[in-house]
């Protein structure tokens, strides 16, 4: 799957590309509006990560090109400005989602996955990991073909793990994903532990292996190794 990263900050662009490449995405980077325009004209991307503040113009212009060319690339806006106006304008111009800098790569990955799932693979909403099967449309989870009941938070947590499988996810990223970043808990993430514990218990009761590994106070990893 191809992703175009439109971002003038080289370090950021490369970090995103590095992370997403491991997730088996093919990443290209455009540093300017012009470059981005040229690339979108020629190629088709599954998802475009779009920074609004570009040196040669407003990134929202890209959305206008795409609309004019009737292209259906998914667009995820990445902006340093947490401004409601930008968000509304971006979404009105056809963007699929909006992510505010700074964000976690795990969050970026989850958002991209969600957009692509929603827009590109109508019908196929199943995420499978060994005996775990998660249906994003009906928001249901099956272990060995048997449905288990999860709370909303536990479901979101499992989905987050599955999309970022094999990756170490920091507690901060989990907290942000589940509760939003406006909750100022000043690094007290004890409450996450309760949710992990409950999820683990429910998965184990249904006969699933324990894939959730705790990583030295840093965070968690969903892996079968």
């Amino acid at each position: 799957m191809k992703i175009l990263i439109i971002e003038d900050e080289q370090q950021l662009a490369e970090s995103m590309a590095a992370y997403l490449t491991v997730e088996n995405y093919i990443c290209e980077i455009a540093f300017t509006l012009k470059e981005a325009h040229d690339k979108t004209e020629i190629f088709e991307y599954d998802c475009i990560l779009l920074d609004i503040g570009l040196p040669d113009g407003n990134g929202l212009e890209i959305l206008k090109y795409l609309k004019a060319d009737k292209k259906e690339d998914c667009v995820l806006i990445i902006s340093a400005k947490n401004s409601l106006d930008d968000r509304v304008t971006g979404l009105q111009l056809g963007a699929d989602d909006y992510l505010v800098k700074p964000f976690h790569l795990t969050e970026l990955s989850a958002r991209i996955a969600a957009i692509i799932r929603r827009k590109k693979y109508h019908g196929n909403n199943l995420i499978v990991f060994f005996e775990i099967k998660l249906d994003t449309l009906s928001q249901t989870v099956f272990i060995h073909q048997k449905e288990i009941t999860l709370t909303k938070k536990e479901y979101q947590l499992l989905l987050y793990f599955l999309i970022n499988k094999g990756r170490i996810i920091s507690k901060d990223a989990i907290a942000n994903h589940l509760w939003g970043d406006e909750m100022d808990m000043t690094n007290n993430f004890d409450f996450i532990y309760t949710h992990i514990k409950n999820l683990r218990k429910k998965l184990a009761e249904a006969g699933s292996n324990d894939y959730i590994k705790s990583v030295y106070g840093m965070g968690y990893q969903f892996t079968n190794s």
Partner: protein
Amino acid sequence: MKLLTKYRQLNLIATCSILLVSAFCYYIVVWQILIAQLDEDLTTERQEVMDFVKINDNLPLPINNKTQQLFFVPLQKNKTSTTISSVSIYDATEKEKVIFRQIEFPVIIQGKSFLATVREPQAETEDLIQYIVLVTIIMLVILLGLLFFINRYFLKKLWNPFYKTLDELKKFSLYKKTTLHLESNKITEFAQLNESVMSMANQVKREYTSLKVFTENASHEMQTPLAIIRLKMDNLIQDENLNAAHLNQLNDIYNAVGKLQHLMQSLLLLTKIENGQFMANENVLLDKLITEKVNQFHELFQSKNIGLKVQLTNKNILFNKQLLEILLNNLLSNAVRYTRENGQLEIILNDFELNICNSGEIALNKLEIFNRFYKEHNSPGMGLGLAIIKQICAFAHFPVSYRFHKKMHCFRISFLASNFEQN
């Protein structure tokens, strides 16, 4: 006290004193002049008597009428000098004491000494003085009264530019985008005042704007490096060669970066509110929003086993939803952070105010807690949460106050600006 009132007071005191003193002086002067006139008359009378004696070597006939008295008394001792004085003599017909001016002088007739006395009543003179003084005082009072009203009119007119300037200054606000504009004036002092005030206001505004721009830019510029640090770390922690010690250190860096990021966002938010970049034009169902937020924080309350008491009545306010969410987030975050395990949290909303109370041990410094970067001891926060709350409330014209009551920290947001109590 108004300047005009003060001026009128001083003016009144000054004019009255001047009036009294000048009336007194005037009286004395006129009296002196008239008495001198009288004395001159008496001296002429004396000369007439002396001339008569010289020619006739006899005394003239005594006179006793209303305007003049002349009589002679034999003199025992020899007296050579002439004296003029005022005497008061009982008048049997008028039944009162009457003041006379008299001249006494010796005359010698056929070797015998007599004391001649010529008297003229002083009352007429006194009456005259009184009339003169009275007329003068009336004139003065009329004059001063006129001056008073003329002054009043002119003063008002003269000070008008000053009051205009004052009105403009009252309307002036750093937060608003308007600049201070004062009209030029022909009067040097007011022109200078306006110039100084304008240059000062503009200077303050420039400084304020540059500070704001600086904060905004600094926060913006720091976002990118922070984002880079975060993304690099997200990548870094995936490295399988890292051991526990590395990861522990990385975790500390994560936390520090998280704090820094939160600081930036808070500063940016404060600047945005000050800049008036938010609109207060949304109808928000506050009770519904609170319920949503309480649900969002549910797990956090649970994790500390905080007892929750929520009492909400339907309340619809015209404000900004995003800011209200931030307000509630900050209030609830504080409540979770500072309430001890098994503590209590009360959220009470009625038509007039929102009260959020949580258990605590000692009262906070109510004068300082809303200040930026103020921290109580052992506070893990940055001291911006309440500053943001205050700023949002100020923007909404909702007075916010803190009090410590029955071992509870209580924050109250009043929806009626007039109910403001500076606790």
